[in-house]
């Protein structure tokens, strides 16, 4: 993530301003290759290390309102701090200690959801 610059706040601004293909390339290749891998694993009925078949992890019941609303809340924050959850840890590894503050914010958001978020449409 560091070497491909996906952890860069500037890259995220650039992505949402559609001024570079870079981030779309990363996500596009990741999704296409992962989809192929998952399809092959299912198709060949490959067993996982614990002897099971590959299935959709934690499938969700469709709730358009919930998905769009939750996604939008996430996106509002993502574009502001310029990093999604994974890069928070990567940036800490890169020596940006201020990401601890973002992590505290994220944990507070997690706790807020755990305590009151259940009332939102699910």
């Amino acid at each position, binding site marked *: 993530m*560091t*070497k*491909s610059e996906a*952890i860069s*706040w*500037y*890259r995220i*601004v650039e992505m949402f*301003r559609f001024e*570079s293909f*870079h981030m779309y390339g*990363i996500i596009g*290749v*990741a999704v296409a*290759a992962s*989809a192929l*891998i*998952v399809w092959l694993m299912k198709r060949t009925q490959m067993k996982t*290390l614990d002897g*099971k078949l590959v299935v959709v992890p934690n499938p*969700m019941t469709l*709730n358009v309102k919930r*998905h*769009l609303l*939750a*996604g*939008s*809340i*996430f*996106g509002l*924050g*993502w*574009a*502001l*701090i310029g990093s*999604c*959850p*994974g890069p928070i*840890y*990567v*940036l*800490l*590894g*890169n*020596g940006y*200690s*201020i*990401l601890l*503050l*973002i992590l*505290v*914010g*994220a944990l*507070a*958001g997690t*706790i*807020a*959801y755990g*305590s009151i*978020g259940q009332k939102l449409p699910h």
Partner: protein
Amino acid sequence: MTGLDGLSQPWHWSVSGLALATIVFLLTWMGRKFGISSSFEAMCTVGGAGRKIPYFNTDLKGKSWLLFLVIGTFLGGFIASEWLQSPAPVDISESTIAFLQERGLDYPSSDATERGFIPTSIFNWSNGAGIIAALFGGFLVGFGARYGRGCTSGHAITGMAHLQLPSLLTVIGFFIGGLITTHLVLPWLLTLLVGDVA
């Protein structure tokens, strides 16, 4: 010349995309799933949030691997910055640079390390506006990730690889929110957020 020179150059986006797909393969093969925001939930449970809030009162058995995913992610960043640092800042487009410059964010000097990763002129320990933005932005990401049950790794990559409609809708949501912030909020907010480079 050392063997690390080639690795120190920025990697092409396709390399990173394939690396992410490799993570999906390994975790799926291990009977797990690639979704890193679950670590937030686990941290809250470890911290004892389960005593007061039933949502966090869960069994962490079988989730310890998440800790290793987090440590690995951290170490990846550490290794990349210690031994494989790129010779030049992130090569963002001229138009993005101009947009930021108009709002007081010089590139790359707004990142004190000049690597072009984080604008430390906004996000540092002494800029009050930046501190609020970091906490607030982090809050939205944490809240949204739990409400939507997943973040970029869980929905955009894993969920879409499994062709899940809920994941696609969540990702569309990511972009609705991201576009609102970037086009309607950042243009005026950035000017207010920029402090001295620290």
